[in-house]
């Protein structure tokens, strides 16, 4: 298995400039998170666009269907690597893996606060949790478990968030009134809020 590879490496030694450029393009394409145009590649590689196009043909030849699991593809925005068609099933299994399907502790605390206390702003949540709420809120918004619900202080204050119907569906609730009772913490939202604030204050005192 080693021999033909050494053969290639041997050919590259001495540094064919076009092949050198092709390697640079490979590197750029593997770190980019969006397709790269010839102009972008040329600017980053610090070479002429014409030479870049020539080197791209080399890369395309190396990374072609059947020949490699990685395939160079020309799309609307430019050039990018993709998985070979023959590997579609494996890629589908990779992306369908049931990992990461659980909420983080931060997200769970945050959504629990919003669900039990009713619409809350990020400063509210941060005060109760004792840490900034920005990333947990962003995460829950992205997953569609919370949504904006007006602003504090009759419109002028911070944005408030409430839970969504998707939240109820995922947690198997017909409505928020079905949330498990928290009588040991407080009998209603106001009492629970007071209790959480009191503890948060102790924690930071």
């Amino acid at each position: 298995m080693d021999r033909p590879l050494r053969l290639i490496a041997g050919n590259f030694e001495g540094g064919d400039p076009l092949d050198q450029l092709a390697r640079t393009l490979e590197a750029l394409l593997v770190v980019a998170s969006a397709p790269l145009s010839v102009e972008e590649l040329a600017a980053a590689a610090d070479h002429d666009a014409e030479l870049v196009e020539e080197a791209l043909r080399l890369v395309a030849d190396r990374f072609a269907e059947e020949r490699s699991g990685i395939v160079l593809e020309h799309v609307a925005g430019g050039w990018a690597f993709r998985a070979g068609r023959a590997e579609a099933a494996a890629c589908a299994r990779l992306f369908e893996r049931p990992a990461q399907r659980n909420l983080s502790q931060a997200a769970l605390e945050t959504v629990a606060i919003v669900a039990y206390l009713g619409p809350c702003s990020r400063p509210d949540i941060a005060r109760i949790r004792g840490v900034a709420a920005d990333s947990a809120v962003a995460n829950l918004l992205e997953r569609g478990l919370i949504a904006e619900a007006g602003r504090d202080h009759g419109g002028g204050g911070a944005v408030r968030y409430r839970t969504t119907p998707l939240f109820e569906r995922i947690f198997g609730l017909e409505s928020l009134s079905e949330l498990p009772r928290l009588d040991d913490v407080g009998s209603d939202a106001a009492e629970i809020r007071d209790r959480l604030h009191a503890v948060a204050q102790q924690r930071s005192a």
Partner: protein
Amino acid sequence: MIVRELELDLDAFEGPFDLLLALVLKEELELCDVDLAGIVTAFLERLAEREELDLDACGEFLVLIAALLELKARALFPDETAELAELEPEEAAEELARRLAEYRRAKEAAAWLRERLAAEGDRYFRLGPSPLAPKVETPLAPQHPGALAEVLRVLAQDPPDVSLSHMALRFPPVSQFLERFRALLGRRSRFDFEAEVAELTRLEQASAFLALLELRRAGELAIEQAAPFAPIRVTRTPQENTLREERTAAWTVRSA
């Protein structure tokens, strides 16, 4: 060599040593944020630049830095200094040595990481998804509502008694309350302090009170309290109104 003129370039402060001392004494600079080792390094560097050993400067510096160290230690470990004082000298030395060694270890680890970062800086990789990767929705698995109740129960537990969180404690900025009270007095001629701060945490209330004192000192308001623990009444002082109007007028003319 004049110690007081020693130029410092620290994360928390840039300027001469005597200004730093003044700011610390006036409590305008948190000593906790000042890297005292950085001051010592600056002094030693300056000392090394000179041909001869300046004993006067060394003496003065030692006195000043020792005082700062003691202040900082007290600020950082208010309860623990008391604890240390109760320990036998041997035990106290043991405890301090343990802490210093722990910090030194953290610094060494940081130095190792810095070298590593420099050595590995030429390893570029993609952050985020591959451009042409299949877009996938990863729906959440069904969750149990009991988990929601459980996390809130834990959040509602009394925190443990031993708390060192005072070290991470930050006062909410006084300036925030300066603005708030000024705005309030722009709308109303008087208000009750308690009613205004009732919703706030104890820390925020403390900051709000500092802001109140600051505004009183500036003559922007008057404070009355009928008796100890009676409600604090805040009243706009008449001249503040006119001053403010003049200022606004002047600004309008200039910007017109």
